[in-house]
């Protein structure tokens, strides 16, 4: 009975929201996890707010480092640590992304944005850093 109701409600919500973008955004005050799973999509849903599209970085009174062509991305451990714990003006983001999402976005920045470092990381590895 209960299950039946929630499925109906879910279907109604889908019909209502319609546009694809609604699914790309989290709802307010409920789940804090982002819906994206693909590395590039995750980058553009959260990292680009500070590191900018294409990892260009930005400079004002303070700066966000460029991730494009960034030698510090050689080892995956460094971005994994930063995403989970934050560092200085970078907030901890581990509550918005699960282990698999963190692995995806780390693989994305290390293999794209003008970077071409070896090796892949995965959810199991990220889990050890939590």
């Amino acid at each position: 009975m209960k299950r039946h109701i929630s499925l109906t409600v879910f279907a109604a919500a889908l019909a209502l929201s319609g546009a694809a973008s609604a699914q790309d955004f989290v709802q307010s005050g409920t789940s804090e996890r982002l819906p994206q799973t693909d590395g590039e999509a995750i980058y553009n849903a959260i990292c680009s707010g500070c590191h900018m599209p294409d990892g260009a970085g930005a400079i004002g009174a303070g700066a966000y480092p460029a991730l494009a062509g960034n030698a510090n991305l050689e080892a995956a451990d460094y971005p994994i640590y930063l995403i989970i714990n934050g560092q200085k003006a970078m907030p901890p983001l581990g509550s918005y992304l699960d282990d698999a999402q963190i692995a995806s976005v780390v693989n994305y920045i290390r293999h794209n944005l003008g970077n071409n470092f070896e090796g892949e990381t995965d959810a199991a590895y990220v889990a050890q850093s939590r």
Partner: protein
Amino acid sequence: MENTAGMTRRHLLTMVGYAAGASAMYTAMAGMGYAGTSSYEGPLELTGDPKGASVLILGAGLAGMTAAYELGKAGYKVQVLEYREKAGGRCWTLRGGDTYTELGDFKQDVKFAEGNYLNGGPWRIPTDHHAVLDYCKRFGVKLEPFIQQNYYAYLHNSEAFEGKPQRFREIQADYRGQIAELLAKAVHQDKLDELVTEEDAEALVTSLKSYGVLNDDLEYVKSDAVSLYRGWAVEPGGGDDPAPEPSDIISLKDIVQGRLWKDLLVGETIDHQQAIFQPVGGMDMIAQAFAREIGDIVTYNAKVIRINGTDTGVEATYVSANGGTEETTVTADYCICTIPFSILGQIENNFSGEMQSAIDSVYYETSIKIGLEFKRRFWEQDDHIFGGISYTNLPITLISYPSSDFFSDGPGVLLGCYSWGAASYQFNAIAPEERIEHALEYGSQIHPQYREEYSNGVSVAWHRVPWVLGCYGIWHDKAANYADAVKMDQRTLMAGEHMSDLPAWQEGAILSALNAVKRLHATVTGAEAAAPAPEGN
């Protein structure tokens, strides 16, 4: 209570307990920062000779300008360095004709009609923020009511009530009434023996009857009495107009399952209770008044890049904020630094190791505000909403209606999104045009008039604000680091909202500055003994 007939009493009480607990939790989180009242003790009276001492103030936000004003009044030589082209920092209002370029070179031209505005950051001042209100009074900043709670505004969950927004007053009355009914019946049937003595039980039932608007059978049912709280199905008229008819009530089950109780209490936290105020014409009226009062002592477009303290003074070096490389160095006997730690941590300095650790232990919360101008004030004309806030589970979190110029024909500006957390990160990550498009898409689920009436809009994504890199400071471990940051480091004291127990409020910025000024003055006049303990603000 026909709608809940199928449920057992225990089931209902469990639901209510769940709702109440979650509601308290949400309310605690709903206002940013912490809920606390101000320690303000009235205008500073600094006695004693500053002996010609000079003070350099970094940042011309409210903290910096409060320090500048009070020190200037006490006879100090004061100079202020500010990165922006104008004073106020986060106390900032965007109006038609302004341009705002966020990090990433995303430029927005504000096209609002004359008189309309968006408060990009602070927008409301609670009654118990005594320092802000006192400066407003002393500087002649005119205040008007900020409508926080509007019983005609909406509560909306896209996944409940077929996505239809519900009026606040209906949910409010029905939620309260049915919870009162449950409780009254439980007491009446001696179900709460252990909690209520026999003498108290009758008094409690009487009060619950009144509180929940229950009938003589202790039921919350469709009635004239209840309609006086939740509204009528047929409104009262005159002459031979139809007689008023009471409205149907919404079942507790639907309210609880639709989570519409979630935002009922926001307006009841001490930071949001009526009376609550806004400056007439925009929050930056406060910044403008401070800038006028402190006079011509601010160097604008000055990006501080280095701070070097010694035993006898402080030197700060700046370059042009517009990209120059030519360095200018300013010296003073003392320094009050209000630069947000997100930025200070990137500035070359010789602060103590403890101070540097403290600076590095603060990051800044995310936040997004989107102002949307509409050709007509349809929320007033069609929905009868005059000011106040509608809440939704959609990523925009809320829609706030302007608290001024009621009934005017002209275009009006809504706050079409004000989010934190994950949704805000997402809004920060996309270009300004896309933010507006999303705000329109979501908002039109509550107000279908949106698309037809939209004129223009602007957004402030706080992680992309070039001179703060976020909304307000969050300490990873305040207990470990805050006291170190409060201490004078050689000749420098920190101030700003992050240096207070009222972070994310202008009151906190001002209180931190007043506290720093008092301690600096005590040091200069040799009255250190009278200085309050570091945590004393």
